[in-house]
């Protein structure tokens, strides 16, 4: 892609300039790092991460096990997330949000996932999908109406998938029929996260089926809208505290002023937003893997067999070091994709790589951690088996691994077009 090549040559030129400057400066014994390492954070980002780490340990950790078993997100946990400003991270202070950056959201999602990936996904969807769409596409009126609510007490849900359209998202069948100044929406959605608690739904429906995917339109739908039915949540393997429900739209009336952006442009918005959302999921999987790892290594340092710590056996050491390396690589991919997005540079391929890789690393880490814990890893008395169950969704939602790989391949192909 010319964009990629352009940015590549621009950065090469930048490095050349810096190198010659560096050479000149070396002459005067000035040592200045040309680029800071990826694990560098602004003071604000560090403070946020530390605050969330502490908050997650004290206000979320005690509830994790019960939420998983009952498959219910504790209402106090959700309100605590709002209180802490975690649900409106990028929303401007003028709308009652936190007014911080995308990278801060990524750090928050990662920290939350170390404690509970279900809570993390609730926060991720709110920030990277719902808030982003409204901030980028909303009219001033829509922003005034919804952003303060999203920042203070209203959970949002994004509704794209249907029973017959997952990866093939744009073949969705939900229709929106225009009548004067409103649309009548009929159809259904599946696998909608946060649906149990959501106060507002962003529904993708086709307003011009004859135009194929170019008719897909994004509607903002309040929970109390007539004709909106929220089905029973799925009984899932993992991420059980996160509600995943089917929705049905029965001649649901939505006023045309509730259209987000332009009619027929919904597909573009979905793709655009999911590119960023991908990095959020990468952060979630990363946090999951790290949290699992952090629970396990101390155990291996305490557990004694054959007169020494199980950590001291070379077989264990090699495995642990290997997983730690994968974790580091996943972290760097995720952070770099986030920084690229913030810098306004092309980031789609990198975002796909981050999501794909982090999900794989999460699965590897969780699996290995159970092995390293031995028998106790297999029981519910220890938190490890939950991470193992939670990680599997990473390769499936917000773009399956196969879709990520195909997208990457397409971009690689274009890079060599010259």
């Amino acid at each position, binding site marked *: 892609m010319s964009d990629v090549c352009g940015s590549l040559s621009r950065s090469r030129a930048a490095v050349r300039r810096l190198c010659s400057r560096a050479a000149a400066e070396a002459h005067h014994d000035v040592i200045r790092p040309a680029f800071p390492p990826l694990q560098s954070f602004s003071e*604000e980002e560090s*403070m*946020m991460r530390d*605050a969330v780490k*502490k908050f997650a340990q004290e206000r979320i950790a005690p509830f994790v096990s019960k939420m998983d078993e009952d498959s219910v997100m504790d209402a106090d946990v959700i309100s605590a997330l709002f209180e802490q*400003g975690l649900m409106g991270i990028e929303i401007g202070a003028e709308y009652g949000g*936190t*007014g*911080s950056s995308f990278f801060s959201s990524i750090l928050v999602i990662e920290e939350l996932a170390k404690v509970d990936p279900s809570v993390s996904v609730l926060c991720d969807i709110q920030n990277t999908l719902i808030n982003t769409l409204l901030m980028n596409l909303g009219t001033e009126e829509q922003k005034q109406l919804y952003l303060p609510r999203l920042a203070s007490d209203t959970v949002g849900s994004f509704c794209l998938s249907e029973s017959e359209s997952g990866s093939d998202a744009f073949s969705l069948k939900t229709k929106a029929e225009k009548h004067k100044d409103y649309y009548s929406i009929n159809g259904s959605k599946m696998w909608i996260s946060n649906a149990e608690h959501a106060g507002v739904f962003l529904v993708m429906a086709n307003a011009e089926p004859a135009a194929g995917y170019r008719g897909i339109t994004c509607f903002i739908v309040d929970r109390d809208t007539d004709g909106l039915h929220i089905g029973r949540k799925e009984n899932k393997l993992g991420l059980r505290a996160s509600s995943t429900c089917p929705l049905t739209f029965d001649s649901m009336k939505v006023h045309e002023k509730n259209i987000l952006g332009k009619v027929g442009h919904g597909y573009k918005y979905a793709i655009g937003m999911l590119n960023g959302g991908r990095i959020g999921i990468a952060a979630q999987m990363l946090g999951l893997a790290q949290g699992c790892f952090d629970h396990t290594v*101390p155990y291996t340092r305490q557990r004694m067999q054959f007169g020494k710590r199980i950590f001291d056996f070379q077989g264990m050491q090699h495995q642990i070091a290997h997983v730690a390396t994968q974790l580091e690589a996943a972290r760097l991919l995720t952070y770099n994709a986030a920084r690229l997005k913030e810098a306004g540079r092309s980031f789609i391929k990198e975002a796909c790589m981050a999501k794909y890789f982090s999900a794989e690393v999460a699965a590897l880490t969780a699996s290995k951690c159970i092995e390293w814990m031995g028998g106790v890893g297999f029981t519910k008395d220890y938190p490890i088996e939950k991470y193992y169950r939670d990680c599997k969704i990473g390769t499936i939602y917000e773009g399956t691994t196969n879709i990520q790989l195909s997208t990457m391949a397409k971009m690689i192909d274009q890079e060599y077009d010259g």
Partner: protein
Amino acid sequence: MHRSSEVKHVASYLNTRGCECFGQPCESHCPVLTDRTIHVQLKTFIKIRVKPDRTGVVTDGVKHSMNPFCEIAVEEAIKLKEKKLVKEVVAVSCGPQQVQETIRTALAMGADRGIHVEVSGKDYETLGPLQVSKIFAALAKKEQADLIILGKQAIDDDCNQTGQMTAALLDWPQGTFASEMTLEADKLKVVREVDGGLETIKIKLPAVVTADLRLNTPRYATLPNIMKAKKKKIANVKPADLGVDVCSRLEVLKVDEPPQRQAGVKVETVDDLVGKLKEAGRV
């Protein structure tokens, strides 16, 4: 000193020395000063190590955070401001560049501005309660503070001296180990936790209060408040500017780890037990 019935501002002294407990209240894991030797108690997941030259403990690379009792002090000050009993809360910390982060945390909790008293290097290593209270007394006069709230003690050195010394230097009354404090006009009612139970005293302002564990539960710095804190000012000051000499009057002779636990001895009969106890001089 003239003061109005409304307290002008409250200063909170923050200690950021070597707490390795990530802000969690920890009851018994940090160095305790006894007769010039420091007994270091090891925590299960954070190892405190004595420096090879035995002049102190290793603090390089150890994460420092706000002293838990100081968090409680900051919280109390902010609560007073929220009740509109106090006009301004100033957070103060003495130390090297890193303490700015701690001051920012206090700002994020709701303090209005910060003062960073720069002390670094060798001066910082030997900085103790006496020098700090001198700095603090000087600042209190300069800022015309009406109330100073500190944590009762730092959990790395457990000195429990700064509050008391500051009050003495200023010739102000003190309410230490406060588990409750109420502002009544220009007097402060303080409930103190003492060995015999609870003692209630009434002291006149200006005064010094030191916060004990049960005074309150500190709030989290919410993300929006962290963002707001960026705009709040932190002034830089040197001890010399306040006319304070930070030279230490104490010299640490030696720092040792606690003696290794000795193995126990098993005995067969009660007579054996009594015999052994007598041998060891315990009976």
